[in-house]
């Protein structure tokens, strides 16, 4: 995504501040810390009272890859009042790795969504 050298957003960074009626938001990319940081930025700027579904599609290359963490802050944003109407947070993973491990990883990273019973972790095709 577009960002200044210090990692801050530019005017060419996609945000959804002007789109208050979004019901479904899907982001496709690789699971890594930059994406987690970007999603935190994107979701923090969203004020769409009717949002029902957030879907994140991505690739996990290796379970040893330490760069695919950092999602607990996204979980905290999604646990805010303005996301009270969420019905599903879906994580769709393209991978050749063991899905049990990936399932556990994202369950640990999204504890609030898991507790609310709206976390769905699926394998992409």
């Amino acid at each position: 995504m577009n960002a200044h050298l210090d990692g801050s957003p530019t005017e060419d960074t996609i945000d959804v501040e002007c789109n208050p009626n979004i019901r479904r938001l899907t982001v496709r990319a690789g699971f890594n810390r930059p994406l987690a940081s970007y999603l935190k930025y994107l979701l923090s700027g969203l004020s769409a009272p009717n949002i029902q579904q957030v879907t994140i599609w991505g690739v996990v290359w290796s379970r040893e890859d330490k760069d695919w963490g950092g999602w607990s802050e996204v979980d905290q944003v999604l646990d805010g009042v303005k996301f009270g109407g969420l019905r599903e947070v879906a994580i769709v993973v393209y991978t050749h790795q063991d899905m049990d491990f990936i399932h556990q990883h994202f369950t640990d990273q999204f504890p609030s969504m898991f507790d609310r019973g709206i976390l769905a972790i699926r394998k992409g095709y």
Partner: protein
Amino acid sequence: MQLLPELIDRTIDYLHDSPSALRACAHVCRDWVAPSRFHLFYHCEIKPSSTSTVRLQTGELLEFLRGSPHIAFYIREFHFSVDSIFGMPDSDWPQLNAALPHLLGMLTQLRKLVLHGIRFTSFAPDTRAAFRALFALPCLVDVKVRHLKVAKLEHFTTLLCSPLKRLSVYVFLGEDFGLNIRAVDEEVKAVELQKRPPCRLEYLYADCDMFVRWLLGPQTMIDISAVRTLDAWCRTESTEGLMARLLRRLGPSLEDLSIQLHDIDGWGTPFLI
């Protein structure tokens, strides 16, 4: 015993993805023919393969529809692709240009048109006119173009007509410097003089800078104020910048947003907020 028409429709709808079952249903009785044919001929595709060329498939379909013209009324989706690893020999173009206007002219009930690898400027005038007529059908609400090659963007955008609700524009692979640029320019001028109402899109897929930049410019052909669903595929940083502007322009109409971010392997700098 006579079955209710709704029950027949429900039964046959259930078999929509089974051509062999639909063909069997079409032989049951007269009442079952139309609903079976509705699914059998709903989708029609011409695509080059290792065993058959676009020219051959076009000729075969035209011959079939000339023999059974009523079948053309069942065709609601038409996919036409000339882009493939097999290519198309130059010698095939005259025959294709001879058959296409007749074939396209028969597809009067089309809802969806998918074009892949079309070199619009290179087509003969009659073929271009047939494509314009196809795009102008009041029932055509969904258009998908992929790897379209045009000499100028307006050669494509002037094809779009007001009934259109869904538009997907995949990569413009390159420009088509056919011999007919001046002739197409004249056709475009004639279309622009018609002062047609704009297309009021509800769905948009876009992934190329050239088209999105045009969309955000002073054009009056496409009204994006009612777009409810956007698939924004950002292949490059510049596409993302254009999509960011597009999202701001769409504002409150947007309900369903998909973003594909670019360069998923290359991200090194954490996005700090």
